[in-house]
């Protein structure tokens, strides 16, 4: 698909919109439908579309495979780390209330961080799956 002009132009137009929508779903998940899991999946779908159009080698230059392994672990680390921080501050594990000055602020910060961790892990793992499957057949 490397020389298909129509695909290239459409993908260039659509991919930024998909990434923007993923970020919207990620950070607007408190107010609208969505959250970390959906945002991560949509984000990785944009990058998968990109690598389908331009080829896996070019996509791997933008996000190398070893970054993805670190990112996948980083998401879980952020999520579990929020719990550890809330424990160190004197609360229960994953009790976000202790993170902020009052209950609402603490819960808001905790949910934002936790959803960010979910989004990073899901996006990275989806790309890991795609890289593993698509890179398998290469010489």
């Amino acid at each position, binding site marked *: 698909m490397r020389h298909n002009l129509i695909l290239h132009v459409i993908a260039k137009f659509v991919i930024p919109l998909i990434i923007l929508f993923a970020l919207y779903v990620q950070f607007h998940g408190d107010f609208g439908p969505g959250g970390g899991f*959906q945002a991560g999946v949509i984000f990785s779908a944009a990058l998968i579309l990109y690598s389908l159009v331009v080829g896996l080698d070019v996509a791997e230059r933008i996000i190398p495979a070893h970054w993805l392994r670190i990112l996948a672990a980083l998401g879980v680390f952020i999520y579990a780390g929020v719990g550890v921080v809330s424990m160190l501050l004197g609360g229960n594990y994953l009790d976000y209330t202790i993170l902020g000055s009052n209950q609402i602020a603490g819960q808001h910060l905790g*949910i934002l961080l936790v959803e960010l961790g979910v989004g990073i892990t899901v996006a990275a793992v989806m790309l890991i799956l795609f890289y593993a499957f698509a890179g398998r057949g290469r010489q």
Partner: protein
Amino acid sequence: MIDIVINITLLAFLAITAVGILRLTNLFAIVMLYGVFSLLSAGLFVVMDAPDVAFTEAAVGAGISTVLMLATLALVKRPQKPYYDEAPQTHRPWLPLIVVIITGSALVHGTWDIPGFGAADAPAQTHVARYYIDNATRETGVPNVVTAVLASYRGFDTLGEVVVVYTAGVAVLLLIGGRRPKKAPVTKNEGEQDET
């Protein structure tokens, strides 16, 4: 009224797609129809006011898993003929038919006891859901109760789910993630099988 029309249309398309998947023998077309099936399911979820699930179904079911299936198809060797044309028939066709009819009627019988869609007195709605609906926005400041339940009240569950996703990624990396050496130290026959 419009809901019923959309529901019936989507369900009819779902059934047609399912029958199409059953009857086709071309794997590429079947994978494409899987994607269509997922997209139709996502449409049904939107009609049932579950946009979160619809997002996931559309992105994972119709998008990513279709791509993964296509990648798998590119890796495996395509058989010349569908294998079941050659396989000898070991049983009469009425045996599976009877099994399917009995199982199907048991399942339909089971659905009579299920509370109606969105019924307020359903067991799922009467236990903790009322507490969440009454208190989630006040206690967490998050208007979307689904997010509040997932990330805050059930934080442990979601942590477990994230670890499951991470574990799946690690498992795939361990199984097929490694870059194969350029010249594998195997005998010629094994090497050929490996390449195909």
